[in-house]
């Protein structure tokens, strides 16, 4: 947490509802039960402070998911970026017009915050910044140890190739092909036009393919991984 936020919290005694005993954080957290999505959005739009807990518990899991995926689970700025993304949701709630689900919109807002954060960061500008053993331990195949090892090797090599192409193309590729955002959302996240996002996506995808094609060892690993799935 930033110093600024710490000082804000220290200014005043706040009573924050505790999570219900045994409640699992999920799309619909404990306090969010007091609001449905339309009521929650209306409360946020009119600036109702009593909606803060419901807003947090409803959308924080989605925000965390996006931030952890793009920034890395061990990134030291994870909490700050997640909090900034939550605040950005309040600030930009007027742009939500129900054209997509609230979760999709929230995801795009959070991704935009990560995008801005990474571009602002001087020392380490990379996607999947915390690609490490802990992250790999969270893959979906914990029982197959041999596959884990292979997956770790594949991902590390792919990330190297991603870092070798132009950043905007890598972002377009990851946001679209890995995270599932559509071109319109990519344009919003990266602050570009849809046509530019589309061009970057196509070129990024092609460059990733060409770079991997020039890496026979990675090609073998990917083909092997595909054969095992």
């Amino acid at each position, binding site marked *: 947490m930033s110093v600024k936020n710490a000082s804000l919290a220290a200014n005043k005694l*706040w009573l924050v509802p505790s999570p219900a005993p045994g409640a699992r954080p999920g799309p619909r957290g404990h306090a969010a039960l007091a609001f449905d999505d339309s009521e929650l959005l209306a409360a946020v739009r009119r600036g109702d402070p009593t909606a803060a807990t419901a807003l947090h518990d409803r959308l924080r899991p989605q925000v*965390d998911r996006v931030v952890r995926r793009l920034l890395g689970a061990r990134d030291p700025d994870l909490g700050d970026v997640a909090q900034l993304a*939550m605040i950005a949701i309040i600030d930009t709630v007027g742009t939500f017009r129900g054209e997509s689900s609230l979760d999709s919109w929230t995801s795009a807002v959070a991704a935009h915050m990560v995008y801005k954060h990474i571009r602002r960061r001087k020392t380490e500008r990379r996607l999947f910044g915390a690609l490490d053993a802990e992250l790999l331990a969270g893959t979906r195949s914990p029982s197959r140890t041999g596959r884990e090892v292979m997956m770790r090797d594949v*991902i590390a090599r792919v990330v190297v190739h991603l870092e070798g192409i132009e950043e905007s193309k890598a972002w377009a590729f990851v946001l679209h*092909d890995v995270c599932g955002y559509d071109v319109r959302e990519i344009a919003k996240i990266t602050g570009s036009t849809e046509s530019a996002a589309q061009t970057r996506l196509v070129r990024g995808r092609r460059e990733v393919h060409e770079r991997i094609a020039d890496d026979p060892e990675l090609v073998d690993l990917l083909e092997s991984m595909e054969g095992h799935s």
Partner: protein
Amino acid sequence: MTNPRYAQLASKALGELDPASPPAPEPGDRARTIVALTRRLAARGRRRRRLQWAAACGSVAAVAFAVVGAMQLAHRSAPIAALTAPAAVAGPQIVAHPVGGGSSVVVSGAQAHLEPLDDGRALAAGSRVVTPADGSATLSFSSGTSAFLHEGTDMTLAAEGAAQVMRLEVGAIDLHVAKLTPGERFIVDTPDSEVEVRGTRFRVSVVPSEAGCGAGAQTRVAVTEGVVVVRHAGVEDRIVAGGQWPAGCTRSAPSPVAARRAVPHSSAAQGLSAGSAGSTLADQNDLFTSAMSAKRRGDGRTALAGFDRFLLDYPNSPLAESAVVERMRLLHATAPARCRAAASDYLAQHPNGFAHTEAEVILAETR
């Protein structure tokens, strides 16, 4: 382009990193974030209320602006001719007082014959007052307005009523316009301009046009107190106290004292301006003393003209209050309506003045 199959396999591998169920935030982190969100929501609420308030104020201002604009548009587009139509509201009674040997004359209406201007003569709409080169006159309105016609002035009362219009052909007029009620207007119309009062003391004169000055305008305006509006060649200028129109003209409206010095006075006028070669303060004292002397010797007409002139020339003089009171006392016996207006004017200017009780009694008596 070739099918980017390896890119698809790479994205599939990266998709394995999907943290489908991120751990719940730490309790402290959750609380801090909720606090931050609470503050942000409260700020948003305040900002929203401010915007709503501003929008409401803006709407009210827009409506008011539209109404005022429409009124001004109607006001501007109203031709002077329309103002000269008989007004539904009865106009103030206007009485003329010649100063300068009775040499002023009146040409009544369309009948082009000259008549001596009798003291206390009531003037109707259409009356034309011409003062000779050695004579002047004062006009007293029952509303409290007074006008001093300088030597060599040709003026016509073009309209009375809610809109009072004085048409100045040549010469100069000093005016002290009493406070106008809503709907009332006071206009001096010159050959090339229109001067409208926003209240109060000013001089309008018509002089030969001067090359390179005021686009050839013959009209000159000097404002002593308050605000007047001058309309000339489709342009409207607002002149405040101390200002002159047009700006930068060498031949501006002469100051009252300078004008009085420049023209030799006869009989009563000479008596009023004796010793006028001194300073402005000496001029004030001389004029006030002359008027008081006339009053003591029983020459009420000359005294009244003297106090009128004093108040026109020196509205901010320390003797102004005394002049107003003396004028009010002089009018008490001869002109009840004007006396009442003078008393009302006095109380408006000096609610706690030394003669406020006397003024209140006059108002009570003439009710």
